[in-house]
C-alpha cells in the first residue's frame, strides 16, 4: 500500500490521476500534463512534493559532518538560509542520492532528499552520525509544496503567513527564509523562478487551496519531469545511481575539489576517474528525426554504439523530443538513436534546453 501525502484527498478532488511513485501515491496530472507544463513556463504551477524527505542535521559538529558526507562543500554556505546542491557518494564514487542542503545555523543544517531513496539515505547517513555526535532527524511532520513559474513568487506571497512574507519576498535565488516551521526557499526543479516551501503538514491543505484561489495551477509529476528535463536537471535513478559517479552524470560542477585535504566520502574514487580518458560524458540530445527519445534507448555515432539515453521525452516548449545521455568521450554533433529497430537522427547539444520560458538550443 502506497503512502499518501496529506494532500491526497485534495488531489483527488481536483481531478488528480494518482499513480504510485517512490512508494507514494502521487498525482501524475490533473487532466493534461502538457497544459500543466505550459502553466509553469508561462504563469505559475504548484507541485505537492511532500513525498520528498526533509532531514535536519543538528549538533555542534554538523558542518564537519557534512563536509565528510557530501561531495560539495557546505563551507561554501556563509549565510543562514543559503542552499547548496550536492551528491552524497559511496566509497566507489557512486551516487547514493542527490540533495539540497540548507545552512540554517552553525549547529543546524537541513537536507531535502528523494522520496524513493529516503530509507537508504537515512541508513547511509546513520553510518557517520555517531562519529560526529550529530543527529539526523527526518521531519515527517512537514509537508512540501513547490510553486514555480514566472508569476510564482508574486502569486505565493499573499498565501504565506505574515511572519515570513517579507523575508520571502526579499529572497535572492538559492536562499531560504524561515519563521517557526515555515521554511520558504527560492529554489526549484523546473528551470523557472519560484519557491519550494516546507510547512507544518496540518497547514498544507489550506495553503494549497489558498494558492489555487490565487490562480496557481496544480501540476503533477508528469509535468515536473518534462520541466526538469527541459531545464537539463538530473533525475536520480534515471540519470545517475550508485553505479555511476557525478563525473559521468554531468554533475562534476557539484564536486568541490578544493580544499584538497577535505576527505569527503568517494573522493579517492573520483580523483582516479577524473583523469581517466575513457570517462563517459553526459550530454544533451535533440531528436532531429521522427519519434520520441526514451530512457535506455541506445545512441550510435558513425554506426557504432556509443552510449544510452538516461532520460528521454517530449519537450512541450520546443515541440521536439529531447534527452540526456551518457556517451563515450568525443561524441559530438550528429548521431543516431535506435528507436524500434531504426536509426533515427539526433544531435548532441548543450543542456539546458529551456530556461526561464526560453529555448536555449537551436532547433
Amino acid at each position, binding site marked *: 500500500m502506497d503512502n499518501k501525502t496529506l494532500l491526497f484527498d485534495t488531489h483527488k478532488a481536483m481531478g488528480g490521476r494518482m499513480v504510485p511513485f517512490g512508494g507514494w501515491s502521487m498525482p*501524475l496530472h490533473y487532466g493534461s*500534463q*502538457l497544459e500543466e507544463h505550459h502553466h509553469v513556463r508561462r504563469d505559475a504551477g504548484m507541485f505537492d512534493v511532500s513525498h520528498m524527505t526533509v532531514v535536519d542535521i543538528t549538533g555542534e559538529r554538523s558542518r564537519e559532518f557534512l563536509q565528510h558526507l557530501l561531495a560539495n562543500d557546505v563551507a561554501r554556505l556563509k549565510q543562514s538560509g543559503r542552499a547548496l546542491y550536492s551528491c552524497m557518494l559511496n566509497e566507489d564514487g557512486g551516487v547514493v542520492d542527490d540533495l539540497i542542503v540548507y545552512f540554517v545555523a552553525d549547529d543546524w543544517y537541513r537536507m531535502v532528499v528523494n522520496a524513493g531513496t529516503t530509507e537508504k539515505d537515512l541508513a547511509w547517513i546513520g553510518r557517520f552520525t555517531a562519529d560526529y555526535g550529530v543527529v539526523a532527524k527526518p521531519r515527517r511532520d512537514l509537508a512540501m509544496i513547490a510553486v514555480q513559474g514566472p508569476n510564482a513568487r508574486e502569486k505565493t506571497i499573499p498565501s504565506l503567513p505574515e511572519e515570513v512574507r517579507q523575508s520571502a519576498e526579499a529572497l535572492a535565488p538559492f536562499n531560504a527564509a524561515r519563521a517557526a516551521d515555515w521554511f520558504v526557499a527560492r529554489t526549484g526543479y523546473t528551470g523557472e523562478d519560484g519557491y519550494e516551501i516546507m510547512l507544518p503538514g496540518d497547514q498544507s491543505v489550506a495553503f494549497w487551496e489558498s494558492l489555487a484561489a490565487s490562480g496557481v495551477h496544480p501540476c503533477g509529476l*508528469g509535468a515536473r519531469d518534462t520541466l526538469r528535463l527541459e531545464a537539463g536537471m538530473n533525475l536520480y535513478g534515471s540519470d545517475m545511481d550508485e553505479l555511476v559517479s557525478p563525473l559521468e552524470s554531468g554533475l562534476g560542477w557539484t564536486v568541490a575539489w578544493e580544499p584538497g585535504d577535505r576527505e569527503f566520502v568517494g573522493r579517492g574514487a573520483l580523483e582516479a576517474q577524473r583523469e581517466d580518458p575513457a570517462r563517459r560524458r553526459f550530454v544533451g540530445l535533440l531528436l532531429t528525426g*521522427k*519519434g*520520441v527519445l526514451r530512457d535506455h534507448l541506445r545512441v550510435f555515432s558513425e554506426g557504432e554504439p556509443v552510449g544510452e539515453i538516461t532520460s528521454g*521525452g*517530449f519537450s512541450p516548449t520546443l515541440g521536439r*523530443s529531447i534527452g540526456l545521455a551518457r556517451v563515450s568521450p568525443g561524441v559530438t554533433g550528429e548521431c543516431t538513436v535506435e528507436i524500434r529497430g531504426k536509426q533515427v537522427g539526433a544531435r548532441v547539444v548543450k543542456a539546458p534546453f529551456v530556461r526561464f520560458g526560453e529555448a536555449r538550443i537551436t532547433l
Partner: protein
Amino acid sequence: MSSLPSDLRYAKSHEWARKEEDGSVTVGISDHAQELLGDLVFVELPEVGDSLDAGAECAVVESVKAASDVYSPLSGEVLAVNGELADAPETINEDAFGNGWMFKLKPGNIGQLDDLMDADAYAESVESEGH
C-alpha cells in the same frame, strides 16, 4: 464510462473498427485508450499499401509518458492513413472516435469484425480491467 459509439467494433487492446459504406474499414484507438496514455505527442502510422495481419502491430502512439503499440483489429490492405496526425497527434486525445481515426483498410475477411466486441462488451472489458 462515457458513451461508446454503438456502430463500432472494439478490440480488447483498445482499437476500434468501423465498417464504411464503401466496404472499407476505418481504425482508431478508443477514448479510454487515449485517456490512459495521456497527451499524445507522436503517432507512427502504417503506409498506404501495407498488408496488415489481424492482431499484429501496425502503428505506434507515443504520449508524454510512453510509447504504445497499436494492433490491427483486422487483416487487410491499408487504403489511407490520417496524415493530419503527424502535425496534430493531440487530435486523438480530442476526438478518438472521429477526427482521430488512424487508417482505413480494405479488409481481407470482413467476417473478422465479428471476432471483435460490441460497445457493451468492450465497456465491460474496460470495467473489469480497472479492478
